[in-house]
């Protein structure tokens, strides 16, 4: 077997594990378990990315998805003090219909796409060779991803950094005021009392 075939085989195994973890997330009611499975999902995704030659992306996914994201989710769980989902898993028609329609549309649209990993696919022959050929001449850094990220598409990255900045400010605004516990919960309790009175 060639290197490519081994890669494809490992790819299939990892994607299978990814599917198993996804269905675990759907079925599980324990929120702590769900957050942990989401972390495992991110790690598996990082492994798939490594296999698919996206080392920078895998690096980011492992640090962000499995590290920071899990810590934030656990912090949220500690704050909301909710261990289990209230409603057990049951089949729901409308979401399933939407999901099935989405899947059908995606499969229909994917018919024209080339097989995964072919070297003569349209997106491999038009733009990519330009970056691969021009980077050593114009930018001269070995990592093409960095060159494209920071130089060719620097304006795009500026926008992304602005989004992150805005998100940070947003979290600061949402969480830095003194908490008013149960502003609407108390009302609700009063409402319940009134209902009981009548």
């Amino acid at each position: 077997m060639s290197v490519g075939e081994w890669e494809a085989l490992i790819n299939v195994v990892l994607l299978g594990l990814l599917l198993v973890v996804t269905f675990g997330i759907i079925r599980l009611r324990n929120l702590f378990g769900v957050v942990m499975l989401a972390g495992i999902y991110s790690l598996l995704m990082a492994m798939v990315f490594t296999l698919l030659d996206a080392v920078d992306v895998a690096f980011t996914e492992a640090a962000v998805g499995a590290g920071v994201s899990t810590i934030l989710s656990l912090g949220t769980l500690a704050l909301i003090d909710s261990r289990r989902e209230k409603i057990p898993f049951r089949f729901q028609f409308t979401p399933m219909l939407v999901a099935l329609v989405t899947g059908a549309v995606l499969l229909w649209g994917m018919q024209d796409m080339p097989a995964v990993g072919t070297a003569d696919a349209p997106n491999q022959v038009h733009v990519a060779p330009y970056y691969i050929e021009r980077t050593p001449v114009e930018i001269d850094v070995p990592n093409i991803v960095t060159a494209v990220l920071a130089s060719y598409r620097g304006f795009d990255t500026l926008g992304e950094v602005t989004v992150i900045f805005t998100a940070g400010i947003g979290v600061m605004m949402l969480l830095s005021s003194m908490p008013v516990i149960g502003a609407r919960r108390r009302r609700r309790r009063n409402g319940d009392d009134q209902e009981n009175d009548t």
Partner: protein
Amino acid sequence: MMEWLGQFNYYVFAILMMAGIYVAMSRGNLVKKVVGLNIFQASVFLLYISSGKIWGGTAPILGDGLTQPISNPLPHVLILTAIVVGVATTSIGLALIVRIKEAYGTVEEDEIAEAEALYEEELIRAEEAEA
């Protein structure tokens, strides 16, 4: 050489996207909804990265004596930024959940709707009492 694989990655992408939509729509728990959205998001990452791969290729880092083909670096750039932006927006969602929990005392969708209905009812009642 790799005909047996075909579009397997794209099928997995479709299934993951369906799963993400299903979780985000059907579960009442807000934390689970956010996790569902993350699955949805990661499925798109998988689509992009898969489309850039060449079997037997190598990572887009130039070196001496490189003979293999180089996978497409452009999807990597797009997804790299998307991941970090994704966690930033997820944290906004989680912060909103925290505020919802503080205000309503619950993170279940139906209970929030119930509390909100009671609250509005009470507001109307208070207005009527004033009038």
